[in-house]
């Protein structure tokens, strides 16, 4: 089991490595369409749902960290409550992200989970701050590699569009 300082240092190293160079998990899943955890394989062996659900879940993890840190700083929450919130908010989407192939972020959470109950508030905040930095890098690279151009195939429709459709259907 790592100390919180060792875990924070490991996350910081990974964060530094992935600020200007891609997170390998993201390259595998979003650039090369490799679903390492098997997500999407039973569903016509496609990757789109893995991108859609996995990317979004991990995207929000950084925000959950932000709010837990704010609550730790400003409110009179006990460490027991903060640990409970961290487990409730982070574990499920982090684990699902891992299933979708974004593995390292879940490895970091699992290591935090092991030591969290023995930490001081400032120590939990320090680790969550580093974790949030790494998650932000994941988001950068997910946004970079997501093929947003496919959106051009699904143009937004508005009231006028349906009005034309209604008139056509009515033979006006």
């Amino acid at each position: 089991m790592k100390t919180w300082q060792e875990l924070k240092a490991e996350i910081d190293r990974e964060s530094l490595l992935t600020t200007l160079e891609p997170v390998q998990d993201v390259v595998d899943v979003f650039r090369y369409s490799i679903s390492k955890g098997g997500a999407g394989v039973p569903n016509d062996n496609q990757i789109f749902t893995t991108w859609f659900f996995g990317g979004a879940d991990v995207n929000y993890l950084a925000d959950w960290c932000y709010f837990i840190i704010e609550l730790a700083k400003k409110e009179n929450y006990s460490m027991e409550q903060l640990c409970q919130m961290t487990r409730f908010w982070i574990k499920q989407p982090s684990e699902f992200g891992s299933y979708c192939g974004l593995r390292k972020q879940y490895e970091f959470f699992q290591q935090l989970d092991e030591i969290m109950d023995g930490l001081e508030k400032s120590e939990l905040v320090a680790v969550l701050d580093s974790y949030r930095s790494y998650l932000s890098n994941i988001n950068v690279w997910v946004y970079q590699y997501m093929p947003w151009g496919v959106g051009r195939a699904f143009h937004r429709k508005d009231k006028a569009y349906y009005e034309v459709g209604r008139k056509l259907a009515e033979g006006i």
Partner: protein
Amino acid sequence: MKKFKMRWPALKMEVMCDGISENQEALDILVDNMPVKAIQGHEMVGGWMLRARAVHLQKVPFELEAAQMKNEKMKDAPIGRVSLLFPQGGTTELLVKYDACVDDRDYIPVAQVAEKDLEVLKKVGRLQWQSATRTKEIYHVEFMEVE
């Protein structure tokens, strides 16, 4: 008031950003962390904004409380506005509005791109949108204090 440059080396373009009267303490923290490099991204739903999703603050952590800072709705911000989103500890997002936005959420304005550089900013914005939706070119952005 503090100033900084945003520079995109691969595009050989840069713009000057001047501090504004709002949120000077937040700008001080941002500038105190420069030089900073990040990956340049683009906003995908709210309008024409450059968006750097991970700007790391490794020298001075961001410890101002959200309630201490003034907010501005992006749709009401002038073209060229530089704003922060969720600044905290070692990380912030940084956005630059370069054309129309419908986003009515609150952001933390800290600077304004110089009038003379707005056309350059728009060019960068359009190239970044091309990257996000078609070419997938990776553009670095550098933030540097200007004395």
